[in-house]
């Protein structure tokens, strides 16, 4: 009996704490969803449950004559996808060499990567800005993509190397005995086994450019080239509060697909990070 009451007390307290936390987590998200259906323009009048909800902000965003939102959306997707593809190629090559070959400079290379991943590459933002100016890559998407890919390399190489180290070397050795060449071992034996970590690296390099604000803000100058992060920031920063409901609609449209993608692959994130993290 005593045991039972203590169990009920424990569970009740747990549920209360969890409910409070759920409220804190969900409130801002529901609030912005509600704001996006508000008929008014500004922050001041917006309510979580508007009296007469409207879709006009969404219509405004989809209207190419009035708003550049769709263009920004397209830019963001383009940049993220290209970054993802290039990162996965460069990173699997580098991680594979570091994991499978012993060559001069390997140890120092790994150590350099370790240190580089600690310093965010936007710490040197003056340099990136000047270099982009010098090479004419300022205000181009290709310049931004190259910076993103370069920034992904150190950390993800470690992550992937940690995973590749767990794939037994006997596999490639026996394939070598059978006369398989370097490329063949890489493409047909190791890479298929590394699919989970490739998925993790791909998702990281897809999401990182979407979440980045500072590099895009420094490198992209014209409104037509903006990514969503910069565009939405400009939308709220220009006259704070006055365009808030439009911003809310724009935020909902990008947050929902990303969140769904994320929740779908969340398991891989966790396993990939703990596997690479503890080993690497």
């Amino acid at each position, binding site marked *: 009996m005593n045991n039972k009451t203590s169990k009920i007390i424990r569970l009740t307290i747990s549920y209360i704490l969890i409910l409070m936390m759920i409220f804190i987590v*969900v409130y801002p998200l529901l609030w912005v969803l509600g704001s996006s259906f508000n008929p008014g323009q500004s922050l001041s009048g917006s309510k979580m449950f508007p009296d007469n909800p409207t879709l006009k902000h969404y219509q405004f965003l989809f209207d190419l004559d009035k708003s550049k939102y769709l263009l920004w959306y397209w830019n963001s997707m383009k940049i993220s996808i290209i970054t993802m593809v290039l990162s996965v190629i460069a990173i699997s090559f580098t991680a594979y*060499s570091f994991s499978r070959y012993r060559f001069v400079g390997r140890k120092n290379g790994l150590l350099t990567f370790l240190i580089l991943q600690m310093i965010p590459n*936007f710490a040197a933002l003056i*340099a990136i800005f000047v270099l982009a100016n010098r090479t004419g890559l300022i205000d181009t998407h290709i310049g931004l993509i*190259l910076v993103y890919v370069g920034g992904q390399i150190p950390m993800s190489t470690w992550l992937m190397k940690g995973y590749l180290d767990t794939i037994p070397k006997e596999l490639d050795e026996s394939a070598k005995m059978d006369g398989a060449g370097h490329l063949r071992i890489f493409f047909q034996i190791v890479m298929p086994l590394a699919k989970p970590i490739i998925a993790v690296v791909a998702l990281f390099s897809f999401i990182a450019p979407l979440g980045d604000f500072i590099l895009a803000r420094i490198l992209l100058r014209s409104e037509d080239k903006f990514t969503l992060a910069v565009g939405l920031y400009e939308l709220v920063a220009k006259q704070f509060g006055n365009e808030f409901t439009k911003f809310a609609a724009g935020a909902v449209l*990008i947050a929902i697909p990303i969140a769904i993608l994320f929740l779908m692959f969340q398991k891989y994130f966790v396993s990939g990070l*703990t596997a690479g993290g503890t080993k690497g």
Partner: protein
Amino acid sequence: MEEIKTTTHHGRNAVLLSIIPGFGQFYNKQFLKGFIFLILGLSFGIVFKDILPVGFWGLFTLGEISKLDHSVFLLVDGIIALIITIMGLGVYAMNLNDAYRNGEKRDRGFNLNSVRQQYHNLIDNGFPYLMITPGFFLLIFVVIFPILFVALLAFTNYDLYHSPPAKLVDWVGFQNFIDIFKLDIWRTTFFAVLAWTIIWTFGATTLQVGIGIFLAILVNQKDLKGKAIIRTIMILPWAVPSFITILIFSGMFNETFGVINRDILPFFGIEGLSWMTNETWTRLALIMIQTWLGFPFIFAMTTGVLQSIPDELYEAATVDGASIFQKFFSITLPLVLFATAPIIITQYTFNFNNFNVIFLFNGGGPAIPGQNAGGTDILISWIYRLTMTSAQYGKAAAVTMILSVIVISVALWQFKRTKSFQEEDMM
């Protein structure tokens, strides 16, 4: 005997001949290799003959005639010249080394590899280099180059009053660092920003880690219902791009129109607080927001660890008569902390450089009289402010150097202690 005496000179001869790349290899009768080195050497000479001297001249002088010489571009070209030279010297050293090694082999009377074997060796030994080349080149230009540039910039007087093309930039030695620690306004600002950076890093990270682990354990209780849905909801803040949620919070905390001051606080009978104009409240808001943003990550990781702890461990403890608390402190917590330690540490370094939340919430503000950083500026956002709004490029670079030294020493200290670093094979 005579054979050995005469042949002892092959190594030396080959090196001497290799002063012109490739000739040592020709001397060793390795024509394919020699040809490759010769071509490399020749093309390097032809392509860079004019560029390199100009590059180094620029690097040393930073330009001599104002309005004509653009100091910053000269610095860029100089660093590129430096990188090219180092790579060239690397290949040249390989050339000398190869000539010497093969010459020595001949001295000892070994047969040298045939063209066919050379080709295979080249493929086998060269393959890893070939594979890291694309990543490596990109890294040089978008990571290594910027670091060198900032490191050099920290020793120049590049600012609003010395900005090309109108004015030249000069080398000033350690003046920027001396200014930061000697001039009153810089010193006050630097230490104020550093102190807040440290409070921010430890406060926000510890809170998010603590709450994340606590909730994961809470939700993982066996007799709790609805685990799947609760876990999905808890992960939402991680799933939504953070720049969006930060901007949303920035709206919610707005002093006059924001929902917090208008609805939530009055509901509890509290008057609205000055979230955006009072330094202390802004800091508190930032730590709360970062906790909201960061706890799901730890929550997910901890949940993963908890699910992998075998039930038998707890059952055995129950048989031995352990209480809930004993089980928690001697089984759950040590296992969780051990497995997530590397991730927790990266969370600290992440928050140390967490620009987005500081900048997007309130731009590092509110402004503070008597210093040139906002009240919530951390080092990285102060660097942004110095660069983008007050054009203090040299000082910003100096602060970046200080920041990098802090981060690198913490990183090295931490990784020296991790086991994987010491295992030769893993490394």
